[in-house]
């Protein structure tokens, strides 16, 4: 647990630091993808790395996502530790077969003889006025795929420590970066040593557990401040595996839970949270786990995204519907 910087940095900068420090710490680490070299990434997350570490370790690839992930797999087979970037969420879909059929399965296929320490960085989510295909929340596709770790930071300091941990992890990691938090600042020092599979209680509370991750963490914290009950906010950080212990301990204490995410509700990540929290906390729950999510529609165009994104009002409304007065009114589907 070494402190790396105490200046407030943006999440983009924290990620940049994490990559630089990982490249420094381990010469097997490579960074590549579309526009990550000379340009430093469309979000500047890889800014300066090609110059600093050379084109052999940080480089631009041809424009082909299956190619990027597929060659990363081959490099990992040969002992390297590639960190690759998919430029935007929806542009990881061409790599879906490589991720699902190989990246997730080669360790299992080879009974552990082949490690696949590949990190696939995916800027995801909305709220930045991106046109179609630039605002998807695609975490459920990968979290459903056994063999992958799926990580998403909600703060700059977590972005640093989780990316460092992801690069050091022997398992393949899909690292979802909430792009609307790229410019968010955080004064906490950048440290290593954060475990890759632990949720964190961001704000203690006693009446309801509000479960968020990535882009919705600040929204959840804001909602907690605005609520007139005591809200405990959990930042999941690891979507797969899920930290049952931390979440269920909280829910058993509070007896109520709300899960928030941008992706559509239907089979969105909140479905698993609701299902497994209910399985483990059924008799502690005063109301069903509420889901505050995107709607079951394609992500809206920029001018309409405000109607889609979970916001404080919707979260507060969900908290209010948690049957505080023990009336048995059924919530909307």
């Amino acid at each position, binding site marked *: 647990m070494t402190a790396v910087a105490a200046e407030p940095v943006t999440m983009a900068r924290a990620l940049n630091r994490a990559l630089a420090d990982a490249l420094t710490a381990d010469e097997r680490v490579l960074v590549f993808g*579309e*526009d990550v*070299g*000379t*340009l*430093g990434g*469309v979000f500047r997350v890889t800014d300066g790395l090609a110059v600093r570490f050379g084109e052999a370790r940080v480089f*631009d*690839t*041809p*424009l*082909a996502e*299956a*190619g990027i992930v597929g060659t990363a797999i081959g490099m990992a087979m040969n002992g390297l530790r590639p960190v690759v970037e998919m430029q935007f969420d*929806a*542009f990881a*879909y*061409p790599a879906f077969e490589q991720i699902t059929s190989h990246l997730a399965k080669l360790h299992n296929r080879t009974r552990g003889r082949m490690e696949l320490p590949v990190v696939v960085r995916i800027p995801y989510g909305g709220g930045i*006025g*991106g*046109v*179609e*295909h*630039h605002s998807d929340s695609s975490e459920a596709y990968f979290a459903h795929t056994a063999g992958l770790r799926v990580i998403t930071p909600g703060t700059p300091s977590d972005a640093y420590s989780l990316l460092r941990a992801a690069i050091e992890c022997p398992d393949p990691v899909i690292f979802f970066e909430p792009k609307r938090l790229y410019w968010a600042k955080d004064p906490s020092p950048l440290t290593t040593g954060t475990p890759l599979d632990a949720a964190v209680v961001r704000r203690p509370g006693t009446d309801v557990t509000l479960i968020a991750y990535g882009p919705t963490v600040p929204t959840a914290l804001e909602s907690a401040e605005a609520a007139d009950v005591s809200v405990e906010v959990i930042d999941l950080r690891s979507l797969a595996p899920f930290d049952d212990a931390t979440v269920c301990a909280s829910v058993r204490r509070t007896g109520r839970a709300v899960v928030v995410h941008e992706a559509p509700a*239907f089979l969105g990540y909140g479905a698993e949270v609701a299902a497994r929290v209910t399985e483990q906390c059924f008799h502690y729950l005063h109301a069903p786990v509420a889901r505050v999510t995107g*709607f*079951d*529609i*394609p992500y*809206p*165009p*920029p*001018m*309409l995204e405000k*109607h*889609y994104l979970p916001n404080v009002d919707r979260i507060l409304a969900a908290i209010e519907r948690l049957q505080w007065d023990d009336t048995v009114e059924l919530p*909307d*589907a």
Partner: protein
Amino acid sequence: MSTVATPRQKLSRDLLPSAEPLQLITPSGEAVPGGHLPDDRVLLDIYRRMVIGRRFDAQATALTRQGRLAVYPSSHGQEACEVGAVAALRTQDWLFPTYRDCVALVARGVDPVETLSLLRGDWHLGYNPYSHRVAPQCTPLATNTLHAVGLARAAAIKGEDAAALVFVGDGASSEGDTHEALNFAGVWHAPVVFLVQNNGYAISVPLSKQSAAPSLAHKGVGYGVASMLIDGNDPAMVYTAVQSALEAAQAGEGPTLIEARTYRIEAHTNADDASRYRGEDEVLSWLARDPIDRLDRYLTARSVLDSETRTRIADEAEAFASSLRDRMNADPMLDPAVLFEHVYATPTPALRRQAAKVVGP
């Protein structure tokens, strides 16, 4: 903006392209000796649409600065492709554009405000694709190549006299979909034309990091697809190549792959900083090969274009731009109900419940 038919050169349908880009008009505006140029009236019409297109493009870039567009990818410098190719299309043919190709849409007759819906952000698409037979501008790179092949194959199956023209970037040529599309087109002998606008960059990535091939047109032979390498800043050449490819397609001679060498003068989009990856010199050298200037010189030398016509066209472009500006200054009418209406042909009960949360019951 309709085109007059013209006698044209019968271009050879080899599987391998020429070593150097084919050209009909030199950068200084002279006809290449031995070349068979399109009719003057056709070229004048192309000139006019290029001028309007460039003015439209500048206006769109200005609209980003005024916050009226979320983003705009300029095709300044690529007008020979944008307009020359579209001018060769017949009414019944289909165009499959990318995000880069707003000028092609405008040249095809799509309303400029409807063209800009995607980039303004009021909807993913502003126009009815069937009105001008223009598919939605495509963002996931190369995916539309397959749609074009499928549509063209369907036209052949239905016995329709229609072909498809699909725009592809040099970067997008690296995607697996491009390969699959060329291969399906070759096997199906589909009436489709692939126009690769090789503008030298995929955002910041230069062609040298994209491909080690002698040319992108050299991909054709691997699919049995006839290929051409052309000067993409020569409007006469682009028009002639695309028209000849479309005629071949319509005559049942199968697909064609055309690589047009061109250059994007502006940054990738207004949000991009091109100085990070290319020098001013390079840009200047390409400005000297400007497609509009080239045609201007050629038509002027032939006395087809005089200062009166030039002014009339410039005025038309100005009027086009100012009408666009005015129309874009009005905030679009937005009803979030539309978010739920077209996910399925008939909204599901769950979607109706969700819509009610947003728009009220």
